[in-house]
Each structure stands twice: as structure tokens, then as C-alpha cells.
């Protein structure tokens, strides 16, 4: 008998002695269940407005927010790359919205920060948050209470412009003002 044959027989015996016995099955990872699209929670109903006594105006009142010629029709603030500094050109816009909020105490606003596609998702989320917060801070200077403003970030997850050039990136480095 060749040494190879001996080896083979020995290993075969070893296998029968150890491995061949029906091995206890390891636990299989639990199956992943498919889940249908979750139903988003409904937005909480706004608090009922306080009753204000109003003198009938001579002319019908126009909410400046719905006036397309008003500065309030502009709802986006744009930023430089990697920056959250408010450019001077956007200060009047933010302050106008701030004054509107001061004058319309029932209104609440959400400021949504966005970033261009370059860089990490979580870091961009934080950068977008900072862009939203920069707008909030300026509104607070005008006298808007912090409790009426929510700032959130979409990071680079919801780009408005889909291109991959500076034009698209500039459009996406943005805070949007959303009245609620």
C-alpha cells in the first residue's frame, strides 16, 4: 500500500469519525421580510389661531405672501461652496420674511438646507443644516421666535438641479423657506 493510499484511508476514516456525522446545522440568518412603503405620519394640525379682533379694512386685505410681485415670493437663499455664510444680497429677502412672520404670529416656517452632490452624505446633511440655521439666526435677529422656526436638512439627497456642473451645484447649495 502506497503512503498516499494510507493517507487517503486515514483521512477517510477521520472524516467518517468526525465530519461525516450529520453536522449540527448552524442557525440561518433570519429572513428579511419585504415591507411595503410606510405611511408617513400625518403632519400635526396647526394650533388653532387666537381670535383677533379685526376692523374691516377700507380695501380688501392682500396677504403679501401670495403677492407674486412681493419680495416674499422669493423663498430661496443661495450659498457658496462649502459655506453657510449669508451673502449680503439675500439679507433683505430673509429680513422681509422675518418681518412677515413677526406681523403674522400664526404662521410657522420651515427652513430646508440643501447641498451640492460633492462629498459625504452625512457631512452634507450637517452642512445643509448649518445653511438652514444661518437663515434662522438672521430671522431671529428681526424678532421671530425660535419656536416658530424649524430648520432641517436634506443634505445632498434631494437635488433640485440634476446636472453635474457648477450651474447645477450652485442651484443646489440652497436654503428654502417653506411656510406651514
Amino acid at each position, binding site marked *: 500500500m502506497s503512503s498516499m493510499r494510507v493517507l487517503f484511508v486515514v483521512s477517510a476514516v477521520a472524516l467518517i469519525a468526525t465530519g*461525516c456525522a450529520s453536522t449540527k446545522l448552524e442557525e440561518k440568518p433570519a429572513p428579511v421580510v419585504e415591507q411595503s412603503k410606510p405611511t*408617513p405620519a400625518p403632519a400635526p394640525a396647526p394650533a388653532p389661531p387666537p381670535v383677533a379682533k379685526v376692523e374691516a379694512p377700507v380695501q380688501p386685505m392682500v396677504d403679501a405672501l401670495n403677492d407674486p410681485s412681493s419680495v416674499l415670493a422669493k423663498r430661496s437663499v443661495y450659498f457658496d461652496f462649502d459655506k453657510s455664510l449669508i451673502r449680503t444680497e439675500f439679507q433683505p429677502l430673509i429680513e422681509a420674511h422675518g418681518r412677515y412672520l413677526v406681523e403674522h404670529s400664526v404662521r410657522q416656517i420651515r427652513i430646508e438646507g440643501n447641498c451640492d452632490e460633492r462629498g459625504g*452624505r452625512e457631512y452634507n446633511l450637517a452642512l445643509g*443644516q448649518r445653511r438652514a440655521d444661518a437663515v434662522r439666526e438672521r430671522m431671529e435677529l428681526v424678532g421671530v421666535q425660535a419656536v416658530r422656526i424649524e430648520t432641517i436638512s436634506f443634505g445632498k439627497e434631494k437635488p433640485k438641479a440634476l446636472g453635474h456642473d457648477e450651474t447645477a451645484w450652485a442651484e443646489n447649495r440652497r436654503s428654502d423657506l417653506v411656510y406651514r
Partner: protein
Amino acid sequence: MPKTWARPTLFRSLVLLVALAAVLASGPSAAQMTVEITGVGSQQYPIAVASFKTEGSVPQDMAAIIRADLSRSGQFRMVDAGDSALAENERVDLAQWRARGADTLVVGSVSALADGRFDIRFRLYDNVKNTQLDGLAYVAPAAELRLTAHRIADRVYEKLTGDKGVFATRIAYVVEFSRTGYELQVADADGANAQTALRSREPIISPTWSPDGMLLAYVSFESHKPVVYVHTLATGQRRAVANFKGSNSAPAFSPDGKSLAVVLTKDGNSEIYMIGIDGSNARRMTFNNAIDTEPLFSADGAWIYFTSDRGGSPQIYRMPTAGGDAQRMTFNGDYNISPRLSPDGRLLAYVSRRNDLFQVEVLDIGLGQELTVTDTVKDEAPSFAPNGRLLLYATEVGGRGILALASTDGRARARITGPNGDIREPSWGPFAK
């Protein structure tokens, strides 16, 4: 099964396309992934994996799955085993296999049992020492044949390299099919057997595994703002655990699985907090006006690594979990984000922007040596394999989001692409418990 293995002598110079036909054979799947190996390790074990002898109808090509697993690691060089199957109970001339260039040989068989399950056996031979290194038998249903092949590959890998194999582990990632179609999927480590855990019209980011592999935490925008969820994979049960005013993001499980580090903006800017995995007891960990995000626990739980721009540019820091001063970890370049630690705590991986290129760097913390480990330039979200040998990350090639693998020495590389959609945000799960 298409057989695309090159002759051994040509192996290094060829880019191999490994079509995972076995995936196609396994029935409808959310994503039939393709693995393309683009780089191999400096030291490779020459191994031959003979086709398994089959009895009855066997729906998986075990040898092909084992070969693909070992190849993907970059640590093995496949020696052509020819077309004929070799069972574990056949006599083999190991010297002849050695002469063909294979230092080791895997043989085996799969037999259909009367109850519908399969008997799978394999042996691993050392052709140089003329000895058997391993041999085992399994009984598994058809649905677990792939898993069994991965487990055999894990045993072969561990016998020959000394490290635990990661082929039987799972990965999570996000696919964007359209601007209103996102899926959080879980797949085998080779991208096969993909299953959808969550489908949403809004983005999903930052999935991360609980240490026991049962839960995923992630950020979902389904309520039109970032909210952190914890999701039980087996049942699909999920709950919002961080849904405070502002943004909620960047979850990371503590090593004991009982807490999450998250980033909340409820107190003004992005700060790191600890919460229970049920969302209870938010406790603030960072206090400053800078961005603090992407928290991550060291394996021993002693440290929280994170990204902060407190020094003027985003860099990786760490702070003691018990409290204390943060310490800066990265110094090259002005943009280092998305820290990940190897399981032994020795290596720190992160994404660095240099000359407008985003690449994964691996820093040997003890030696202070940094190495760029990828050949792609839009890298995101590195994730260590549980054995610390490979990094899985997201990148973009040809305008499409794909996943890629790189060994921590930067030599072995592979790309994993899906049939459609942009794949991103990979997270490598733990060893099966």
C-alpha cells in the same frame, strides 16, 4: 455556468468577469449583482476548487460560489481544476495537483436526500504537505445551498489565512431606482440573494447593523425630514427612535447593542447624543458651535470617533465615551470624513478629498501611516468587513452608483454592480452569531 477563469499564468494580467450565474438560477431577486475583480493581493494562495460531484438535481454550483468567494478576497489565485467533478470520497493524486500549480485543493459532493434536503461534503487538501486540512459534511435545504457554499469558503479561508472568513456574512445598502423609488436592501456578502427591507418614495441613508445582526438603524426622509429608525429585519417591525425638531441622523450602535449614538439638531446645531435603542434618554455628548457628526464606537466601547469641523475643516476626532477632551486623528488634507474602525481598532478608514478627488484612506493609527486604498475617485461610506481585511464602499463609475471592495493594503479590488439603479450607503454586517 459560464467559466471565465483565465489560465493561472495569465491570471494577474486579466480582468476577470465573474458572472454569478448561480444567482440567476436562484430565482427572481431584487438585484442580480455582478462582481468584477480589478486587483489582486500581493500574496495569493494558489488553490484549485474542483467541481463538486452531484447526485440528483442540485440547483447551485457549489464550487463556482466557493471560487468566486475566494477570488473576491484577492488572497487566492484560482488554478484551473478542469471540467471533471471530484468527490470527497475519491482518491486524488495530490502531487499531480501540486504539479499543476495548486498548493491546495478543494473537492466535494452534493447529494439530494429523500426528504428534499441535500447532503454536502467537502475536503480541503494541502498538496505540498500531502495532507488533509479540513473535511466536513452538512445537511441543508435547497434555499441554504448558497449559504453552505459560503460557509465552506469561510472554512477554507480560515484554514489557509488564519483569519475568519466573511463570505457567509450579509451587507446592507440603499438603491435609488428613481427620484421617487428607494430601497434598503440586505444581501449576501457577494451581492447575491438581495432582499428588500424597506421601500420608500423618499431617500434612505446611513444604514448600520446592530452588533447581533438582527437590527438595522438608518435615516429615512419618508416624513420629509431626516428621522432615525430602528428596524427589525426578521419581522419588518420598525420605529422612529430619533424624531426631534430639526434633523436626526448618523446612527451608530454601541458595542453592547443597547444604545445608539445619533446626531440631533434640536439644540441648535449638529451635535452627537446617546439614546437608548428605543429612543429614550437623549444625552448630549458634544458641546460647541461646529459640526459634530458621523459618530462611531470603537469595538471596546471606550471611544467615540466622529467627524467635526471644529478646527476649521472637517477632520476625524475621537473622544472618550465616558467624557473628556476630543483628540484629532487626521491631519492630511482639509476634508476627511466618514470614519470607520477596523474590528481590532488598529486601522482607521475614512474618505478624504484631495485635489477634488474623494478616495478612501486607511490610517494605521499606531504607525501614523496613511494609504489610499482605492482606484476610484467619488468614494463614500467605507465599511470594514467583520474580519478587518476588506473595505466595502460606495463610489461612482460611468455615472452610476456602485459598490466596490478594497483590501486594507490597497491591492485587492473588486466592483459590485447591480442591474439598475444607483447603489450606495453600504454597511457590512457582523459575523453570524
